[in-house]
């Protein structure tokens, strides 16, 4: 029997983007207020989980056509290379740098290499949790 998911599907279409934007906000906020790569990644996953509850697993794979294992590996390599970058510049492993840059639209912005590391964490968490959910979900 097919249940009628109209309300869930309609709400999902709107809420999905709110969650995704919030995830990016949380990822960027991590340096000065609660948040960071880990929660950001979990939030992203929760958005995709909502999508899969409303539209099914196949829709998630169609909407986000990436191999989440590769996302995980990509995140790990970003975090790692961020640490190794410091050693190339003759600083101890994992040394971070920060500076203030004038960006168009955003104005005076604090940019840190810790954000690159956090993006690595974000991708790893997203990739790992999505891999877990998709692998368990596939076998029915």
């Amino acid at each position, binding site marked *: 029997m097919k249940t009628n998911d109209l309300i869930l599907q309609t709400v999902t279409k709107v809420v999905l983007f709110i969650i995704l934007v919030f995830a990016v906000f949380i990822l960027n906020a991590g340096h000065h207020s609660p948040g960071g790569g880990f929660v950001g990644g979990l939030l992203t996953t929760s958005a995709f989980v909502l999508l899969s509850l409303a539209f099914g697993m196949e829709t998630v794979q169609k909407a986000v056509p990436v191999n989440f294992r590769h996302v995980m590996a990509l995140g790990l390599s970003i975090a790692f290379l961020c640490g190794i970058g410091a050693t190339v510049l003759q*600083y101890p492993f994992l040394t971070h740098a920060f500076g203030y840059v004038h960006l168009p639209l955003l104005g005076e912005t604090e940019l840190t290499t810790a954000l690159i590391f956090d993006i690595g964490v974000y991708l790893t968490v997203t990739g790992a949790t999505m891999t877990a959910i998709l692998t368990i979900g596939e076998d029915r």
Partner: protein
Amino acid sequence: MNNVIVFPVIVPLLTGILLIFLKERVGVQRVLSAAGLFLSTGIALFLVRQVPAEGIQTLAAGNWPAPFGIVFVADMFAVLLILTTHLVGLACLFFSFRGIGEGRERHYYYPLFLFLVGGVCGAFLTGDAFNLFVFFEVLLIASYALIALGGTRRQLRESLKYVVVNVVSSTLFLISLGFLYAVTGTLNMADLSVKVADSGQPGVLTALSVLFLVVFAIKAALFPLYFWLPDSYAAPPTPVAALFAGLLTKVGVYAIFRFFTLIFVNDTPFTHTMILIFAAVTMVIGVIGAVGSENVKHILAYNVISAVGLILTGLGFYNDAGVTGAVLYLVHDMIIKACLFLLGGVIVGIAGTEKLAHMGGLIKKHPQLGWLFFTAAMSLAGIPPLSGFVGKVLLLQGGIQASSYWVVGLSLLVSLLILFSVMRIFIYGVWGEERFPAGKKMRGDGALLAPAAFLVVLSVAIGLGAEGVYPYISLAGEQLMDPSLYIESVNVKE
């Protein structure tokens, strides 16, 4: 500052990460994993040359000074173990090329393998108690996946037990770290050493030290917490079992050494006597298991337990000769246990059974295998020209200096029984009537035996070249017995 010391950790981990992208390309995975391990073996070799020349090397990760950030400390003990880890890792890797099967290779076998090696090296290098916990988890999670990879019935059953035991011990580790942090207010090992010494070791610290001993005893399979080991080391495929036997329990042994030569050294009459008693009992229990078992893999696994006991007696004696002997015996044991597990796996593979009673006559078709096993067994028992001998002599010397004659007597008796237990494999499995299914041939015999032969050669070289190896080992012993060297190198700022 010396970035080189973290590269034996980074190179395997980074190679493992890259291999995740190459899931389907098994050939590329093999080449890259071998290249990565060779590279970091080279770095480990470089470190082994550098540390005696320039003293203990440290690196403050992220450029934060010692008690605030995480430090990596490469003293002689850690560096020797890292080199041994890489050599054992290389042997197991080359064995895997022929011995693991393509199905497993396609399912992230090599990334997990490299994560395990990287985690082990990280645990050896770190100078921070919580970071030690993290690296323990890195290597344990890789080992959970490796023990279950392939999904046979037996592997699943044993991996469940293995995971439960290790999750319990990891939780206990975390709780102990919480207590330790509450009492001392620091987790940096050098800083801990200073603070614990200043506090004059009140009762709560002695209690904590026992808690840590329990945690690491589960990881290292010390009596009475060894019960999980024999079955879980018999379940996984040969190269994985060899890697476990060579590396995993040894990380627990390393952690016990680090904690009880650096941090908890102010109440030795209590703590080190306790270690000595448990180590002696472990030695005996392990060898009883080895002698009593009829299963090749169980015999070898019980020998792992027995060796852990023998190594820790050196810490129990707590004098120069004892600790130096323990370091040498630890290095020897990592090499020879991996070697015996590889050879045992080949024997079981040819015979098609693990039961001694159903084996026999292997030497007619496979003379190289037979004699390699014989040499490895002799080295395990500590027969003079081979590597087990020198370590055991030093351990016995330490025992005599500490006037623990009963332990010395016991360890001699245990050596005899170890020899008996492995000779049973040789006599029943290798000698006698040929009992194998007719015409059964092992494919790629040479490719499987070469890594084990490499380890045997290494063991012989350590035995014959003991004169050349000894300065490194004794330096490791010196640095372990004098915590102030470690503390000065870390240069803790208050």
